[in-house]
């Protein structure tokens, strides 16, 4: 069930009404209801993979309780190891099996040993990378003594499977989300209205920006050899806004839906394309994943307290693992490696935390320097997206070769240029809207709050109209579902 489907448009109001009008009297029953609807939501993709969610839930709930009982470090380590093995084992089998087997076979064949990869076809379950990381964070926090193990299996099951963020995040921490399942929720008008606004803005990002950019990005990436350099540059631009609109749009809808049900999820995006350097970009892009890696990988590895060689090693590890988390393909490793290279000069100059506050915080427009910094950061990020989007390293290389040709300065040549101009106009309007709202949690958060209600409502109606005017008429899943 996709957020941008009629099915979900019926599902969410039904859940909302039942949640607040039928099950509001008992926290336990309300949580149980959320578990049931979350499992129903997930089963609309493939009910068989519910067993994996159940497995992950039972393992980490049980290990959490066992960690609470045992004080001996050896036993606690063994329990933590079991949780890591179970969760990462699931990921290894369902996400990375083909990658390792295929590369092993390729390695053997390069050594002159013939082999074959067998016929086991493993399907990637939707959202597995997200919920395994979420449950892992719980066990690690309990192991570290930063969180008390829960004795409420229903609340824990709801924390693992909570439908708004189950398949593509934000990857929540138990300290934030689980605690909310254990406290009585009350309906809050302002929070619900903010939730609806965020859902609306998320749908605009996905259906107006991302899906329309996708049409041209797909066209360029499908056949880089038949397009000239400037068309390929446009393809990268379109993909940059496709992936941002798609993923941050999903996060907005997830956070908005949660607000309707009385939950606050963590922020996942903070206007990343207005970043002035790569360090700032990574504090603003997929925040729930970057902070996960920071807290559970980078800091345990020694973080920035090591000598120079150790810090460089840690940077590469974190970015390569982050790339590999996205998919079992060398292209994602290359994407992560590129970002590590982009980040390295900042770290060496100890300037990776110089841009912490929002750009042009008290001004309407950026300074010339800020504009150049944002543009150059965007160019670096967009260039790295080529590897993220490409099917293989060869494909990425072919794209870059086509891009870096003399035709980069020629007029772009591709089909449906009139429509592309329209999409570029939409992207430009979107950037202006995001810039205007960059100090807020999301661009629409406080839009028009001083205007009369009818003008504000007309603005919302206009956004609904834009969604109708630019919606794809065929199903368009979110990109991050594949991760």
């Amino acid at each position, binding site marked *: 069930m996709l957020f941008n489907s009629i099915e979900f448009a019926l599902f969410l109001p039904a859940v909302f009404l039942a949640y607040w009008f039928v099950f509001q009297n008992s926290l336990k029953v309300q949580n149980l209801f959320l578990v049931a609807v979350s499992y129903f939501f997930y089963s609309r993709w493939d009910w068989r993979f519910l067993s994996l969610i159940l497995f992950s839930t039972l393992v980490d709930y049980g290990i959490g309780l066992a960690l609470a009982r045992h004080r001996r470090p050896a036993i606690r380590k063994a329990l933590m190891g079991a949780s890591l093995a179970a969760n990462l084992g699931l990921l290894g089998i369902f996400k990375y099996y083909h990658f390792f087997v295929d590369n092993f076979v390729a390695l053997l064949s390069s050594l002159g040993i013939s082999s074959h990869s067998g016929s086991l076809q493993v399907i990637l379950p939707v959202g597995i990378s997200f919920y395994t990381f979420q449950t892992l964070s719980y066990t690690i926090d309990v192991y570290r003594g930063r969180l008390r193990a829960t004795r409420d299996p229903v609340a824990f099951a709801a924390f693992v499977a909570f439908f708004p963020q189950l398949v593509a995040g934000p990857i929540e921490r138990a300290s934030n989300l689980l605690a909310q399942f254990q406290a009585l929720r009350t309906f809050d*008008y302002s929070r619900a209205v903010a939730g609806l606004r965020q859902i609306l803005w998320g749908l605009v990002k996905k259906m107006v920006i991302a899906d329309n950019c996708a049409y041209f990005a797909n066209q360029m990436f499908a056949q880089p050899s038949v397009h000239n350099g400037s068309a390929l540059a446009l393809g990268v631009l379109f993909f940059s806004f496709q992936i941002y609109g798609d993923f941050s749009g999903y996060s907005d809808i997830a956070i908005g839906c949660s607000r309707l049900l009385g939950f606050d999820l963590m922020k996942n995006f903070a206007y990343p394309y207005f970043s002035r350097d790569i360090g700032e970009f990574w504090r603003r892009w997929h925040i729930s994943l970057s902070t996960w890696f920071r807290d559970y990988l980078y800091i345990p590895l020694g973080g920035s307290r090591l000598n120079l060689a150790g810090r460089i090693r840690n940077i590469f590890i974190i970015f390569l693992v982050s790339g590999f988390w996205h998919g079992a393909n060398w292209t994602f490793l290359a994407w992560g490696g590129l970002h590590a290279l982009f980040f390295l000069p900042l770290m060496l100059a100890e300037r990776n935390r110089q841009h912490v506050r929002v750009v042009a915080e008290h001004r309407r427009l950026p300074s010339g320097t800020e504009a150049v910094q944002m543009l150059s950061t965007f160019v670096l990020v967009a260039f790295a997206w080529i590897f993220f989007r490409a099917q293989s390293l060869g494909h990425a290389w072919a794209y870059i070769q086509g891009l870096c040709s003399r035709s980069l300065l020629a007029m772009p040549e591709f089909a449906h240029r*009139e429509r592309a101009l*329209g999409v570029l106009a939409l992207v430009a309007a979107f950037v202006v809207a995001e810039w205007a709202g960059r100090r807020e949690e999301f661009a629409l958060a406080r839009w028009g709050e001083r205007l009369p209600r009818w003008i504000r409502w007309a603005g919302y*109606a206009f956004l609904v*109209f834009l969604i*109708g*005017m630019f919606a794809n*008429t065929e199903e368009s899943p979110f990109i991050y579902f594949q991760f």
Partner: protein
Amino acid sequence: MKRFLSNLLCFAPGCAALYLVFLVAWGEWAPRGLQRNLYYRRGGHGHLLSRLQEARTAGPVDVLVIGSSHAYRGFDPRIFAQRGYTLFNLGSSAQTPMHSLILLQRHVQQIRPRLVVWEVFPATFTIDGVEATLDLIANGEHDEFTRDLVRHHRHIAVYHNYLFSLYRRWTRRDARVVEAVEKEGDVYVSGGYVESRKGRQRADREIREGSRTWAFREEHFTALRNGIEFLRAQGIPTVLVQTPVTPSFRAAYLNNDEFDRRVAGLAPHVNFNGMIQLDGQRDFLDANHLAQPGVQMFNPALIDWLEAGGWLMPPAR
């Protein structure tokens, strides 16, 4: 909660009303590149407006042609007239059998053909028909068939176009649209035909032989069967004709024979691919549309075939 729900209930009808206002404004003033789900082209590509206006006074004729753009670009009334036959062409872009049946139901009483030549192209049996519906909404009349089509598709562009066309007709703005006889190199010829004076439009995309299959939709075969039954009930015979396409285009598809077999089971059928020698460059506009030199070779061959089969009786000379 009460305030939240009452606000939502107030917002919903206001939003619906404003949606219509924005739709009208967008249709009137937004650049075409921004009209993604509103493709309203009265007097647009394919001269359907001129054709349907002429159909109101046409007939009786010897031959009525129905079908896709292959029909209005492939059956020239002037060539038929040279052989002593009258012909009217009711083709439209991407017309599926479902749309053909609607046009027949609307116009056959007026045109009163002795024979219907139903142009069948496999591609039109694979598509959803939205393109043809949008064309009919903008250029045709609005009746119960139109409303059935709108309900059938459940497609947002169809809803938008229908609502926009209601506004255009209500304000009589559509009545003022006059379609040019010649536009973009296409010339409308009385009798529903469109002659292209542009020559070869583009090189064929390279499609590997046998690399594709037609994915047919059963609803189109059902509509074709219903159309033939409808004509039979009127006492009008039907023949199914496939116009020539380039050899490379035809060879790209694996299941052409399946299509030929299925349509041949419904009515007399002829496939002109391979029956006449055509030049891939000179005789075609693109991979599957005939250019005028191609039409001048195809039409006499078709007339010969129809006469030989007894479908047309040569006029006494």
